[in-house]
């Protein structure tokens, strides 16, 4: 755990991405999927 606002998600401290970075990456990958209608037929 770092003293930052976010936790590191891997034990390898030097290279691990923060939770914020993971959230940003996943959010924008999902946004791209929505933009190109890949998730069009998902029954929410």
């Amino acid at each position, binding site marked *: 755990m770092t003293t*930052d*606002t976010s*936790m590191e998600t891997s034990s390898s401290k030097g290279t691990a991405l923060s*939770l914020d970075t993971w959230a940003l990456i996943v959010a924008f990958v999902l946004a791209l999927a929505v933009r190109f209608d890949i998730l069009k037929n998902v029954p*929410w």
Partner: protein
Amino acid sequence: MASTSALSPVKSDNALLNALRLVPGVLLLAAIGYAGKFLERFLNTYAKAHHWMFPNIEYVLWAILIGLAIGNTVGVPKLFQAGIATYEFWLKLGIVLLGARFVLADVLKLGGISLALVVIEITLSLALMTLLGRMFKLKPKLISLLAIGSSICGVSAIIAAKGAIDADDEDSSFAIAAILALGALALFTFPAIAHALRMNDVSYGLWAGLGVDNTAEATAAGALYSDAAGKVAVLAKTARNAMIGFVVLAYAIYWAGRGQAEAVTDKAAFLWRKFPKFILGFLLMSSLVGFHVFSKAQIGSLGNLSKWAFLLTFAGVGLRTNFRDMSKQGLRPFVVGALGEVLIACLTLGLVVGANRIWGL
């Protein structure tokens, strides 16, 4: 070179194992979230079919209640714990995606009002918690942690401050337990008070965002009132979170000045390190909507994805709230926290009512 390539498969194996360890807990979060949605729909249909006068209990509350019931009765086996800890990831993901449901102009208007209220709230909360902590003779660093946790954003702020002011593990777990216990209480008291006062969605959302400490609980408290109130609560809470670096920096400088923490050499780097980056994602998503990157149907899909991410968060809020563990932390920090929170809740309610009169929320 040879050693690096020899290590690579081990590293990727570890990453894969770490990812696999999350699966059971994430599935449990999803199952509880889905059960919450199912119960809401099922009970509504059943009550209508049998002409019952049954209050509409939102899926948010069901997900929290199921999580609370599991966490405080049978407990959560170790197998699920790593995945359940991802609830904070789902919260941040949900907030970034929620940016799509805001027009940037609204963000700027409401965010501006929120920021103005946040500055007043933080100043008064810090002063109030410090005063109460001194009255109850708590340890100075515990007072700092409680003040930071209750004025900005709960657990994240306490964790950020712990390293910066070099506080004890014991003090930070005291402060975290107090903030979490009070957050759990706020989930039930805030919506009830707002219903009694017949607050509108925007006013209530602002109040929940300003008055409830932890981001997950503030989001849940907002969503328990209405969808619109949930959106505003997230926005107000996000404005509050943005201030984390400034307050932690001020405390770090204070404790370094007393020779009880490391001096901060590069203040700009310190601020950037403590700044919650997911807020930038929220703003970027809102800007993309402003530039018509997404169609109306696509914005709806992003909103649904955000709701699903929050559903997993709410299940996690219930699961990780353990009343037995909290009771072990002692009464005094809890009493100080509770007194402070009640006063802060009244104060923020006054601020929101005042803002409503001035800006007509």
